[in-house]
């Protein structure tokens, strides 16, 4: 694997002139940017700017008509979601996509799917290598549960949890994949101030403690500017600006896009 070959600060993922359309609707037009290893990269923009489409392209849900994506040195134009996951891209969703009938523990364990290799036979018997494996992964998952402070809801079916906690479980499932690149789609949408502060803390801790590279979409500008190392701004599927939070804040195009201009 090329896992260790990319050093902190080098380009982990590069999006090169990607265009994506659905029939006549252009979701993304000719967008290029990169994500460097170890950074927190924000993607912002008004509603319908193509932010979520961009994440979907990166983890293989959508296949762009044009452009290339280079991840860990491998260039491709499209890939299947299971391959993206296997290569180390994990994500959360705007509208929380959890396995609602399953417990918190099982949801997070499902993030270990690709790391578990014992064969079908042992699994059916729940014995031997399968049991050892289950225990080993369970320990890893318990660490995540401790880290996210959700010990109390370990056995609760996630469908019954309040929204803020569901978002946390979803983050836990993504972390269980030990990703090289973590994509967060509006991790704080619909949260109150306290929950937002908790979530911000988790994101920073994941980034500093585990060195995970994070790309996030968020509408709360205060959060974005505080958390991220670099920000890319999209509008109507095009790239409007790219740079550090301060640069982006000062960019006239961005100010116009967010505040509107008198014509």
């Amino acid at each position, binding site marked *: 694997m090329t896992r260790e070959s990319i050093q902190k600060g080098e380009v982990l993922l590069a999006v090169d002139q990607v265009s994506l359309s659905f029939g006549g609707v252009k979701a993304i037009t000719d967008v290029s940017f990169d994500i460097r290893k170890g950074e927190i990269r924000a993607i912002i923009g008004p509603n319908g700017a193509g932010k979520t489409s961009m994440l979907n392209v990166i*983890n293989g*849900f959508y296949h762009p008509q044009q452009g290339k994506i280079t991840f860990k040195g491998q260039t491709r134009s499209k890939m299947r*979601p*299971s391959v993206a*996951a*296997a290569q180390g891209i*994990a*994500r959360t*969703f705007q509208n929380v*996509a*959890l*396995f*609602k*009938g*399953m417990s918190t523990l*099982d949801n997070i*364990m*499902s*993030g*270990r*799917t*690709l790391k*578990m290799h*014992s064969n*079908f036979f042992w*699994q*059916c018997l*729940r014995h031997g290598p*399968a049991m050892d494996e*289950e225990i080993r992964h369970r320990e890893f998952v318990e660490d995540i549960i401790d880290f996210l402070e959700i010990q109390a809801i370990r056995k609760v079916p996630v469908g019954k949890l309040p929204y803020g906690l569901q978002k946390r479980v979803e983050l836990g*499932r*993504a972390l269980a*994949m030990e990703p090289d690149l973590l994509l967060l789609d509006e991790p704080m949408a619909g949260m109150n101030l306290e929950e937002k502060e908790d979530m911000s803390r988790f994101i920073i801790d994941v980034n500093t403690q585990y060195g995970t590279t994070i790309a996030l979409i968020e509408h709360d500008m205060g959060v974005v500017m505080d958390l991220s190392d670099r920000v890319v701004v999209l509008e109507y599927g095009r790239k409007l600006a790219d740079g550090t939070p301060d640069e982006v804040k000062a960019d006239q195009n961005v100010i116009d896009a967010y505040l509107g201009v008198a014509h």
Partner: protein
Amino acid sequence: MDILFKVLIDPFLQMGAMPDLFVQTIWDGFVTGVLYALIALGFVLIFKASGVFNFAQGIMVVFAGLTLVGLYEMGLPAPLALLVTLGVMFVLALAIERVVLRPLVNQPDIILFMATFGITYFLIGLGELIFGGNPKQMITDQLFLPRGAIEVKMLGGFVQFQKIDIAAAVIAVVMIVALAVFFQKTRIGRALRAVADSHKAALSVGISLNQIWVIVWFTAGIVALVTGIMWGARSDVSFGLQVIALKALPVLILGGFTSVPGAIVGGLIIGIGEKLGEFYWGPLVGGGIESWLAYCIALGFLLFRPQGLFGDKIIERI
């Protein structure tokens, strides 16, 4: 008044008068119910994982049974024939995923439902082509399934238990428990439940939908094989058997399309209800109510509890 007496009171007097017959009827119903439950289980497995109502489950039962007997007649020893049949069911699952499901992914459910009709007629044709259209005798002895009956003296009479029925009940229970453990406790089981809950989220953690579908259809194939053996042992293995798939419908309506326990309880209610109805109330209308009573029970359920006893209540945001 006379008719009311015959409907409401007389049957229960009969039950009380001859309790041994009553127990016998319950037992017969129980065994039929177990077999219904097995068929319904095949439906539920596939419906949960892929949202497809698999009309072909009935013919899969026949096809599995025919393959087993056919291979034995071609000279394979019974245990080997059983293994090869399992292999055939696996290849069938692979083929269905590759040729039918994958090209139709993201199509409306009705399209997939119609595709299972296609699978049904394809399997009927293939089965007749290879094994001929004549009914076959299930190789009960060769598979070490018991024959004969046990008579138990109880309640002032004799109650007869067919050994094959006892075996069917035991095997069904073992299989249901094994499936439950498999679903709850293993990585693949967890992946199956994950796919049933959310395709999108399952994909994002690296679960391959294609692989899961093969596993689900193969599991349904194994259930079909067991059902084929058990049902075939009570009658013959013939293409007529596929209509039992239609009996699974009321079972599913009763139990809920998404619930494994529902399939079991629904199967038992329908099985026992049918036999009791036929035996005690059937004579009032000249018999033969066994063939339609199940649908009437299901109709009643549709009116008052459309999601079934254990099914998920579907609430959509508008």
